[in-house]
Every structure is written in C-alpha cells, then in structure tokens.
C-alpha cells in the first residue's frame, strides 16, 4: 500500500504517474504494466488539466493490492470542481477520420484497460477508483 499527496499538481502528471508505477503493489508483467500506466496517466492528466483552475490544488494518489484476490486498486482523490468523468459518453469509434472529433479518448482508454472504474463525490472530494486483477 502506498499513498502520497501532491500539491501543487500543475505540470506534475509524469511525476505522479511515476510514483504510482513505482509502488510495490504493481505487477512486473510488462503488458499489465502498460495498461495500468496508460490508465493512470489518462486519469491523472484529467485531474491535472481540469480539476483546478490553473492547476493550483492537490491530488492524492494511492495503490493497494489485495493479496488474496490479486486485485490492484488505484485511487485518485482531489478537491477540485465536482466532475464525474464516467458520465461522458463513449466515443463513436465507427466514425471516419473526417468525422472523428479530436480528443475525448482518455477516460475511454481507462475504462477499456482496467477491469472496473468508479467515481464518487465524498467530503468535497472527487474520488476515482480503478481496479485491475494483476495475474498475467
């Protein structure tokens, strides 16, 4: 289990991602790491870019591994504007290049790469929880 509060967070997403990826809870398997890192980067970037005006604010990032079920939990908590990223519609991936809007793929990637992702607003905080079973 690992947890750290970053404050401020402006321009620090790669540092926050690196902190989480260095957790002893993380699997060694390269393919799993790829999917987890991508999900973390998208979720963290979402907070860094949009949670606070001008990026002045904190983000608490933590990991936890359940030894029995081998389910890895990644939790991100911030006190920014209340925002549930899961309410956004998934992109229409059948559109042509002309029609495809630019952007809006980050959280969709998280949803696709992780086993589950949930959001709650609690005590004035946005809490995003992502889970992935880490057996290769």
């Amino acid at each position, binding site marked *: 289990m690992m947890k750290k509060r970053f404050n401020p967070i402006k321009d620090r*997403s*790669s540092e926050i991602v*690196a902190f989480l990826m260095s957790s002893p809870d993380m699997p060694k398997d*390269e*393919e799993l790491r*790829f999917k987890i*890192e*991508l999900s973390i*980067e*998208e979720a963290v*970037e979402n907070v860094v870019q949009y949670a606070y005006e001008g990026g002045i604010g904190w983000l608490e990032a933590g990991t936890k591994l359940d030894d029995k079920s081998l389910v890895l939990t990644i939790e991100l908590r911030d006190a920014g504007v209340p925002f549930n990223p899961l309410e956004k519609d998934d*992109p229409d*991936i*059948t*559109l*042509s*290049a*002309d029609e*495809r809007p*630019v*952007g809006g*793929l*980050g959280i*969709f*990637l998280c949803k*696709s*790469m992780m086993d589950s992702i949930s959001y709650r607003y609690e005590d004035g905080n946005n809490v995003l929880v992502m889970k992935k079973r880490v057996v290769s």
Partner: protein
Amino acid sequence: MKNNNYMKVTINKQDEKTFVVLDGRIDSTNADQFQQDVAPLMEGDNPDIEFDCTGMTYTSSQGLRVFLLLQKSVVARNGKMMLCNMNPRVKEVFDITGFSNIITIV
C-alpha cells in the same frame, strides 16, 4: 541512456515519399513536442507518408490526438499515410479507440 520520456522523430524525404522513424514514447509530457516534430508532414499536396513504429513503445490519448490530426490533414490533401511495424501493445490502443479503422496500420 534513454530517459523515461524519450521520444524521437526522424523524417526523410525520398522522391515523392516521406519516411518517418518514430522512436520512444509519446505521453502527456512530450505530445506537444511530437506535434511540432510532425508539423512538416502537414504541408504539401498528395502526401505519401510511411511511419516506422518499430521503436515506438507507448502512446497515451495525447499521442493519438496527433495521429488523428495528421490523418485528417492527409485525407484533406488526398494523400496517404501508413503506420508500419507497430508493437502489439501500442496497436491495441489504436484498436480499442477505433483508430485502426481510420488509419492504415500494416
């Protein structure tokens, strides 16, 4: 020693064709740089662009964003673009997002 955010774009023009070697990872720290690096590919008529993605180890949605901008630009100029030798993990990111349907990956 390659650091965590290593990314390199090498562009070579041979006659009518443009070859691009993409090395490293594209993430939130260097996606803007990547966009600047490929800016020359957004110019000219009937572009014919071939990316060698052998050394591309990672892309986040911000890298995908640049590939979509490129593809839109290429289509608008009646050109073609191909991404070659993509590693399976990176390819999955293009598959999941439907980018494999709108960008030629071989």
